[in-house]
C-alpha cells in the first residue's frame, strides 16, 4: 500500500466497497486539505514504518487564535505515545487533526495504517474525554454504530460486537442503557466502540480524566493489556504526568499555546508493566523528569 495522505476519501480505500468516492463527495471540504509540496518528505510514512506523520502542522482558528504548531510528529506503528501538556496547549486539537475531525491551517497529516480489507473495518478509533454514547441506544447498539454506518451487518458484525464487548469486560451488559452504567463502564463502552472496527490507530483524548483514581488505574491496566495483545498504535492525550509515564513508550511534552513539541522522553521499563511499576523508584524518577520538563509550560500562568 502506498502513502495515505490524511484524506478520509483515501482512508476509505481500505474498504472494498468503494465508499471513498461517496464520502469524498459528501464532505467536499476535505478536498481542500492543504498539501505543502516543499514539506512532503522523499520517503513515505509507509516506507518509514510510521503510522502517523505530521509535518509543519498548524491550526489557526477563525478567531485568529493560533492553537497549534508548527508541529512535526512521527509515530511508529504499534507505538504507545502520550501527548502531555497543560490545558489549552493544543494537544486535543492535534488529535482532532489526526482523526480528520478538523483540517490543518497548514502542513501535512499523513496516516499509514496497516491495511485491512475486512468489511466494516476503519483505520481510526477515537475515544473522547466524555463517553459520548447515544443515551437512547443500548450498550450493544452503541458499539454497533461504526459497523452500522459502514453498512456492515449480519453474523460477522455481531461477532465483532461480542468480541469488542468481551475485550473491555462488558459482555454481560450488552442490553443495558448508558444511564444504567457507572462512569468507568461508560468509558469501557466508548473503548469497545472504538475497537469494533479493528482500527490500527487508536486516538484517545483524555479518556480517563473524569474518573476516580481506582477506576482510572484499572482502566490504565486494561488499556495496556489491550495494547499489548492487539498491537495497536495508540496516541494518548493527557494532562497527567503519572498517567503518561505509566502507559507510554514515549512521552511528548508540549509547550503552552500555540502547542509545539517541547521535550520527548522514552520510558524504558521492564514489560509488562503493572502495579509494581507504579510504586517503583524507576517510575518516580521518570515522573520527576517529565514534571520538570512540563514546568515551563505552566510558568507565568495564574495559579501555577
Amino acid at each position: 500500500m502506498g502513502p495515505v495522505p490524511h484524506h478520509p476519501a483515501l482512508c476509505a480505500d481500505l474498504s472494498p466497497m468503494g465508499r471513498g468516492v461517496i464520502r469524498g463527495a459528501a464532505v467536499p471540504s476535505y478536498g481542500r486539505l492543504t498539501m505543502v509540496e516543499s514539506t512532503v518528505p522523499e520517503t513515505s510514512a509507509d516506507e518509514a514504518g510510521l503510522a502517523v506523520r505530521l509535518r509543519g502542522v498548524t491550526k489557526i482558528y477563525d478567531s485568529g487564535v493560533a492553537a497549534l504548531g508548527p508541529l512535526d510528529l512521527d509515530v511508529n506503528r504499534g507505538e504507545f505515545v502520550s501527548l502531555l501538556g497543560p490545558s489549552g496547549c493544543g494537544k486535543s486539537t492535534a488529535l482532532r487533526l489526526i482523526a480528520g475531525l478538523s483540517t490543518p491551517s497548514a502542513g501535512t497529516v499523513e496516516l499509514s495504517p496497516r491495511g485491512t480489507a475486512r468489511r466494516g473495518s476503519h483505520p481510526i478509533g477515537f475515544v473522547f474525554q466524555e463517553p459520548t454514547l447515544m443515551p437512547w441506544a443500548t450498550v450493544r447498539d452503541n458499539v454497533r454504530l461504526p459497523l452500522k454506518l459502514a453498512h456492515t451487518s449480519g453474523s460477522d458484525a455481531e461477532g465483532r460486537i461480542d468480541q469488542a464487548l468481551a475485550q473491555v469486560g462488558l459482555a454481560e451488559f450488552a442490553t443495558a442503557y448508558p444511564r444504567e452504567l457507572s462512569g468507568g463502564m461508560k468509558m469501557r463502552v466508548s473503548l469497545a466502540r472504538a475497537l469494533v472496527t479493528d482500527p490500527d490507530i487508536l486516538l484517545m483524548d483524555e479518556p480517563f480524566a473524569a474518573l476516580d483514581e481506582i477506576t482510572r488505574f484499572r482502566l490504565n491496566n486494561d488499556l495496556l493489556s489491550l495494547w499489548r495483545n492487539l498491537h495497536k498504535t495508540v496516541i494518548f492525550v493527557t494532562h497527567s504526568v503519572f498517567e503518561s509515564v505509566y502507559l507510554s513508550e514515549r512521552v511528548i511534552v508540549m509547550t503552552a499555546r500555540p502547542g509545539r513539541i517541547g521535550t520527548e522522553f522514552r520510558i524504558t521499563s521492564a514489560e509488562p508493566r503493572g502495579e509494581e511499576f507504579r510504586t517503583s523508584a524507576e517510575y518516580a524518577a521518570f515522573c520527576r523528569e517529565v514534571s520538570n520538563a512540563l514546568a515551563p509550560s505552566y510558568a507565568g500562568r495564574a495559579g501555577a
Partner: protein
Amino acid sequence: MKSLQDLVRVLLPGVVFAAGLVLWELIVRLYDIQPYVLPSPLLVIKTLVSDWPILSQSLGVTLLTTLEGFVAAAVGGVALALLFNQSKWLEYSLFPYAIILQVTPVIAIAPLLLIYLQQQTAVIVCAWIVAFFPVLSNTTLGLNSVDRNLAGLFQLYGASKLQTLLFLKLPAALPYILGGLRIAGGLSLIGAVVAEIAAGSAGAGSGLAFRIAESGYRLNIPRMFAALLLLSLAGIVIYGVLALISYLLLRRWHESALGKES
C-alpha cells in the same frame, strides 16, 4: 410516607373539585337561581345525558377537526424543521413568516380563511396555524442540540447526511419533538374551536364550539355548560394521551421520564 404523600396529591384536587360542585349546587338551590342564569351541576349532567345524541355528534366533528389539524401540525412542523436544518438559507427566508403566523391572533385570521377556503378546510388550516409553531421551534431546538462529539464520531466514520439524520439528529431531537407535540395537542383543539365559532354554520357538520354559540343565542345555558364540559374533557384526554406516548417512548433513557431514584 412517600405513598401517603402521593395519595394526598391525587386526593386533594378531587376533594376541591367535589367541594366546588357541592357549593355550586347549594348556591343555586338556596338562592333559587334560574337555569338560564346559572344551571346547577346536576342539571348540566342531566342535559349532557338528554342531549347526548346532538352533543356526541358535535364532539365527533370537533375531535376529527382537532386530529386533522394536529396531524398536519405535527407533520408540517417536523418537516419544516428538517428543511430548515438542511438549509440555512431556507431557514433565514422562511422562519420570520412562521413567527408572524404564530403571533397574529388566529381569531382574526379565521374569517379571512373562511372566505378563501372551503369551510372544512379552513377549520383544519386554523388548527394547523395555531399548533404547528411549537412543533417547529421545539424540533429545531432539538436538531441543534446534538452532542458535538457524537456528530464528530459520525463524521469520522463517514456517515451520510441521511444516516446522521436518522441515527443521530432525530433520536436526539425526539424528547424536544414530543414536548412540542404535547403543546400542539391542546393548541389544535383551541384552533378548531376558534374556527368553528368564526364559521358559525349549522347542520350536521357543526362541532361543539358551534353548539356553545348556538345554545347561547337560544339561552339554553345548561347545554352550553354541557358542551363546555365535553370540550374540557377532550382537552384533558388529548394531553393525557400525548403525555403517555411521550413517557412510553422515553422511559428507558431520557431524564424527563426517569424517577428521582434512578
